[in-house]
């Protein structure tokens, strides 16, 4: 048992910090978020070709760096802290994870190496408009046709769905429900019959899309894993992505704490810095407490994720660790971001200061893949039913 960073991991953290401090400035965030695409092509290229971050945990045989989930979590925490606008989460934590977990050897060879090589973008589409994040979310319908399949349905809340090069989609066979009858496919986003529409969101730093499949014909080779039996794999992909989001949330929770401490130290009222008021100090102390325990939760969850990817621990442990992390980190980030607005006073309510960007990201990432109540109920099921 060892629960602290290796020197190499510390180096990754420092590198990510300095790279993102330079790259993801307030100006950069604001110009990216004002586009429909939601990220800057040069930035993405820098990440992929200079830093090679997209290849972090992809196995070496597919051109990746073969590092672990802890290394990935370290980077994600920094991306959350710097509010990086990029298709990293969708491509690596949804797309690449889907391929790693469910892809056939050929699919891995083809797609993972393109992600590593030049930053091919990908995302996962499984949610319909019912606002659910588990198996019932899958409402698109698939049936066999000839050698291949025919898929119809509407996906909503798909991260970077309007820009991704490649889509991994979940669909279910007719008259199935729950965990049954779910299949996964990989398909080029420009396949005919697929209509993709950007959904403008309150959090402008992360883009979502609606994707409509209108009787789209899929080749037999598009199938990932076993037909109608993909839920366990999909669940694992979602759990892995959930941990990734939680890692970003910790970075955000830290950042709004830092902004608040910095601001209240400088701001003078009643002849003293407002940071000297105990009511302010205590609020900041609570923010730090939440941030630190949230950080402990994601490092642990990342360790579990790593052990799952190396086939060491059971999947139920992964689900639990993911829910523990996501429930706690969602609440912590949101509370911290709300407190940060309060501690900034009037300027916290302006468009000019960055606090609102974090406040909005806190909410959107809380919702994404299930809010804290959803994850607590998942834990409750493990404990009580």
């Amino acid at each position, binding site marked *: *048992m*060892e*629960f*602290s*960073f*290796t020197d190499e*991991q510390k180096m990754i953290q420092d590198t990510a910090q300095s790279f993102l401090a330079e790259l993801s400035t307030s100006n950069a965030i604001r110009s990216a978020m004002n586009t429909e695409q939601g990220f800057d092509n040069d930035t993405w290229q820098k990440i992929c070709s200079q830093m090679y971050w997209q290849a972090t945990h992809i196995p070496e045989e597919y051109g990746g760096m073969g590092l672990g989930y*802890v290394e990935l979590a370290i980077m994600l925490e920094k991306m959350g802290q710097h509010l990086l606008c990029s298709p990293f989460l969708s491509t690596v934590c949804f797309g690449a994870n889907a391929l790693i977990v469910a892809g056939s050897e050929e699919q891995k060879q083809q797609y993972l190496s393109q992600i590593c090589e030049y930053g091919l973008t990908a995302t996962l589409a499984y949610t319909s408009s019912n606002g659910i994040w588990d198996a019932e979310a899958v409402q698109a319908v698939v049936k066999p046709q000839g050698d291949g399949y025919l898929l119809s349905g509407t996906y909503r809340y798909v991260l970077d769905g309007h820009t991704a090069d490649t889509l991994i989609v979940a669909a279910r066979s007719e008259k199935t429900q729950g965990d049954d009858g779910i299949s996964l496919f990989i398909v080029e986003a420009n396949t005919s019959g697929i209509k993709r529409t950007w959904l403008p969101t309150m959090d402008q730093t992360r883009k979502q899309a609606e994707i409509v499949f209108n009787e789209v014909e899929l080749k037999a080779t598009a199938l990932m894993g076993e037909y109608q039996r993909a839920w366990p794999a999909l669940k694992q992909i979602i759990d892995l992505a959930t941990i990734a989001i939680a890692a970003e949330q910790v970075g955000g929770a830290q950042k709004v*704490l830092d902004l608040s*401490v910095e601001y*209240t*130290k400088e701001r003078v009222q009643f002849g*003293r*810095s407002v*940071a*000297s008021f*105990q009511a*302010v*100090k*205590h609020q*900041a*102390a*609570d923010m*730090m*407490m939440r941030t*630190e*325990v*949230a*950080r*402990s*939760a994601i*490092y*642990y969850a*990342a*360790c*579990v994720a790593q*052990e799952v990817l190396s086939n*060491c621990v059971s999947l139920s442990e992964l689900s*639990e660790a993911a*829910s*523990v992390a996501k*429930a*706690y980190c969602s609440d912590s980030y949101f509370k911290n971001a709300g407190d940060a607005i309060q501690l900034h006073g009037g300027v916290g309510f302006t468009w000019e200061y960055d606090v609102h960007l974090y406040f909005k990201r806190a909410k959107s990432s809380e919702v994404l893949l299930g809010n804290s*109540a959803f994850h*607590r*109920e*998942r*834990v*409750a099921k493990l*404990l*009580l039913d």
Partner: protein
Amino acid sequence: MKLSFSSEDEKFRAEIAQWLSDNLVGEFEQLKFRGGPGDEHMFPEERKKWEQKLAQGGWTCVGWPTEYGGRGCSIEQQVIFNEEYARAGAPGRMGHIGEGLTGPTLIAFGSEEQKQKYLPGIIAGNDLWCQGYSEPGAGSDLANVSTKAHFDQEKGKWIITGQKVWTSLAHESDYIFVLARTDPDSKAHKGLGFFLVKMDQPNIDVRGIKQITGTCEFNEVFFDEAQCDAQDIVGEPGNGWAIAMGLLGFERGVSTLGQQMQFQNELNQIITAAKANGSHQDPVIRQRIADAHIGLKIMRYNSMRMLSGGGNNGELRQEALIYKLFWASWHRDLGELAMDVLKAEAEILESAPYNLTRMQSMYLFVRSDTIYGGTNEIQRNIIAERGLGMPKEQRLIKNS
């Protein structure tokens, strides 16, 4: 970072588990799951015997270095020891102040003579210690202690006069460590001394204080020219504050893991109760039970982080700074959850006149977790000042 234990550590786990299952039997059977928070006044004699039993097996002071009679266990092994101890339902430790506070303090700051004199009694489970810090005028403001100590040249002894309060288990203890003023004209952190004092002497008077639970776990301790030997001051006169603070650092050590396993036992009890009375189907209770479980898991990860890696030059790391505030608040909430799960039955006593059920004791006792060892408010001051570099609280200096 890795989560699994080495095969050597797993062997160690099997060894302690086996020892506990072989020895926590017969007269000790009744001690299972007793003596924890809120239950500390129960079975003192039997639990003292249990301490000695543990000692015979070599299972006291497992984390102390072997040169001082400890077992020299690694952090991992101490984690395992505490896990298995709580899993077996072994009773709350009577010796935890000596093992967790006095011993490490003497090992770090004590003279060779003090180590020789006091460590063996702690290891053997014979000598129980209590903590004489708080006074009527010195609670959160610990540096305000006014108990005095002066050196009597003729007798060759330190003479101590004053009053301590809230002293846990003083009535069961053989020794007390006392923070007292060696320089009568000094103020605040300066001019203090740290003394090792035998309880069994005519000049010390212990009076129990009845607690919220109706039982007496803590006491007032009056010193009326009480004595200790010239060699029983740790460090130099005037340097007591540094020792006292060093000791508080040990409070956040490995013992927290044992405490967590007790928390786990309490949570398990709550879950069992919820399933038995159907409140496990109440969506609000479900959320709160899950929340408690999540908090406890994270508490464990956080202390693993605290214990890993070591080498932090004496400065508390961020995750250690927030730990007391987190667990104390978590535990307080758990008490409320216990009562809410039990619904109307929560009110009904075990028996008259005021015998509480285990859950009721726990529920009442947890209100102290956010007070002793630095209140939540003091924790927040410390976090803000040391962790975030925010301005320090001002102390008012009275001009007299």
